[in-house]
């Protein structure tokens, strides 16, 4: 345990202050450090990844790390199979999660995930001031520009750029009459304490079905209800909906195994003697229904703990009170305030065919953080990244390699893209990974943006957007049953696109 005097980042002025020591804050700190951007990291938690000390209840994460993949663990392409490790250009910092799992499951346990983050912090030399709670925020306009003042339990931090990576972690419940009789998901007890109880779970998303799955053999009866039908990820062909690990309650429901899954609005919860009565209105025919339960659990989600940021002008939206963001994860209403980690899902991107990016999970937002670090370094600190030149003969192979192994466009489909610019004076350059919407809407040099997309039918396919004289054209390439985008057909299609730029 470090002595108090050894804690880094005394209160004071820093160019950038990151709040949070979860995967989002840590990934951003590592990426900013690599680009030489001085910053402080503060966290209310005592150690990295505080959230994983509490959730999910039933121990294992929903995100996999496959120990055996067709590519080397030290390669960038392995990130496609490893959803949990943080990312780095340094091979020694890659795939850390793999070696910290006991081999019994590809889904890490909470302690394994905590160890993964702590190991990354140690090896990457990330410094965090733990036990430092951000409490309030002010804006100050001086002669030399605007600053934010973050008031913390340790004192005041002043900065021009503040990045909040505090998770979407504050329990939320609707204002339904009697909801105070319900415990929130966040307060779920040990499974055995629900033995022989009649449970009513409000909410039919992953948290509700996680509880139902974990308590199936303990509870006497489980009823889950919310107004709209539950979606299943295996039906949406995406991470939208209840994950495959939690579908057992559906079988119990269908076969009369003590689980009922209802589409109904919860009108009230009333105490009746030692039990609770949940009054419902069915979504299909509007009829009333009452269900008696010993306990009601509100699996109604979480909101973003933004404290007083809305009072200084940060606009929020949606049930999760996510901050409205630009494509570069900056507050749409208060420039200089950025977001990392799961909050970055507030910058939704195109959501083509209704499929969101994976910014709500580590395997999505770790890339957002790296792109954000480059943006902050270039736009605010004039540390411009090198854009490597590509030979005309190399472009086709470059595109194929990205489609075959590039992790950013694989995990953040139709959200992040690899951009190659084609300019008569500057030649052909790898412009790196950027949010797809900035390529489509931002103007700029001629070029192409490579990404991978899915249409919700189960098909996954490469898409290349070209920009020539300001006109954007979408080129969808063929899907492949084994997701092999290196076939002759794909090479020919890309060659045709490149020919439009005069690249043979």
């Amino acid at each position, binding site marked *: 345990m470090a002595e108090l005097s050894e804690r880094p980042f005394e209160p004071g002025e820093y160019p950038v202050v990151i709040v949070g020591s979860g995967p989002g804050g840590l990934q951003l700190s590592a990426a900013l450090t690599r680009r030489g951007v001085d910053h402080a990291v503060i966290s209310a938690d005592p150690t990295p990844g505080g959230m994983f000390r509490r959730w999910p209840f039933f121990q294992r994460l929903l995100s996999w790390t496959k120990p055996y993949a067709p590519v080397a663990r030290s390669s960038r392409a392995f990130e496609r199979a490893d959803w949990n490790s943080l990312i780095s250009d340094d091979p020694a910092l890659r795939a850390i999660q793999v070696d910290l799992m006991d081999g019994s499951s590809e889904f890490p346990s909470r302690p394994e995930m905590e160890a993964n983050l702590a190991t990354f912090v140690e090896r990457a030399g990330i410094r965090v001031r733990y036990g430092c709670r951000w409490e309030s925020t002010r804006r100050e306009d001086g002669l030399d520009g605007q600053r934010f003042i973050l008031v913390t339990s340790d004192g005041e931090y002043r900065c021009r750029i503040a990045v909040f990576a505090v998770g979407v972690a504050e329990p939320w419940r*609707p204002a339904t009459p009697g909801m105070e009789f319900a415990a929130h998901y966040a307060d779920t007890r040990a499974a055995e304490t629900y033995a022989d109880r009649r449970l009513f779970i409000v909410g039919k998303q992953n948290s509700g079905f996680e509880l139902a799955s974990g308590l199936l053999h303990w509870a006497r009866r489980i009823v889950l209800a919310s107004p709209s039908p539950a979606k299943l990820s295996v039906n949406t062909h995406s991470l939208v909906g209840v994950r495959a690990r939690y579908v057992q309650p559906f079988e119990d429901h269908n076969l009369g195994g003590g689980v009922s899954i209802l589409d109904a609005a919860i009108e009230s919860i009333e105490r009746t003697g030692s039990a609770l009565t949940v009054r419902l209105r069915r979504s299909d025919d*509007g009829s009333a229904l009452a269900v008696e339960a010993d306990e009601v659990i509100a699996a109604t989600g979480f909101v973003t703990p933004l404290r007083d940021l809305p009072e200084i002008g940060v606009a929020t939206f949606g049930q999760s009170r996510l901050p409205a963001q*630009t494509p570069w994860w900056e507050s749409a209403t208060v420039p200089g305030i950025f977001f990392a980690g799961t909050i970055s899902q507030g910058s939704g991107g*195109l959501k*083509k065919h*209704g499929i969101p990016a994976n910014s709500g999970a580590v395997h999505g937002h770790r890339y957002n953080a790296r792109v954000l670090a480059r943006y902050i370094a270039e736009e605010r600190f004039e540390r411009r990244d090198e854009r490597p030149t590509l030979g005309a003969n190399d472009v086709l192979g470059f595109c194929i390699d990205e489609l075959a192994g590039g992790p950013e466009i694989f995990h953040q489909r139709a959200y992040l893209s690899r951009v190659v610019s084609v300019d008569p004076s500057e030649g052909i350059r790898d412009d790196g990974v950027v949010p797809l919407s900035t390529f489509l809407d931002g103007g700029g040099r001629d070029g192409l943006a490579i990404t991978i997309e899915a249409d919700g039918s189960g098909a996954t396919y490469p898409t290349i957007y070209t920009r020539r004289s300001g006109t954007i054209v979408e080129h969808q390439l063929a899907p492949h049953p084994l997701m092999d985008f290196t076939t002759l057909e794909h090479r020919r299609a890309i060659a045709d696109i490149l020919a439009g730029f005069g690249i043979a």
Partner: protein
Amino acid sequence: MASNLEIADTLAGFALFADLPSAALERVAHTFEETWFPDGERILRQGLSGSGFFVILEGEAAIIVDGTQRATLGRGEFFGEVSILLGESPVADVVALRPMRCLVLAGPAVETFLVEQPRVMFRMLQAQARRLRNANRWRS
């Protein structure tokens, strides 16, 4: 920020959802997703596939065809349904003129939604009929 109950109350005042009882409105609020666009952001992109159906809760948007603004849309109005119904890419950009809060339903979910909510489909048909009538008036 608004809860689903507050969104259901808002929807009750929109012509598109005016025939729905409260339980159905709450289900609509659960089915759609709330989204927010800063001033100047493109919401629909002319010629690009995979867009959604949008209902405006707050704000104002411009319909832009080949760079020329043709019309504006405001609170309670909707857009994006034509390309979804026809299975084609949008023939116009829709751009936020002010910060916009919208509800959005993914393209692949629109048919199921309309079939389940025939009163919404009827109201949408009425709106389309009005647009067609107005377009015919301009031509004559």
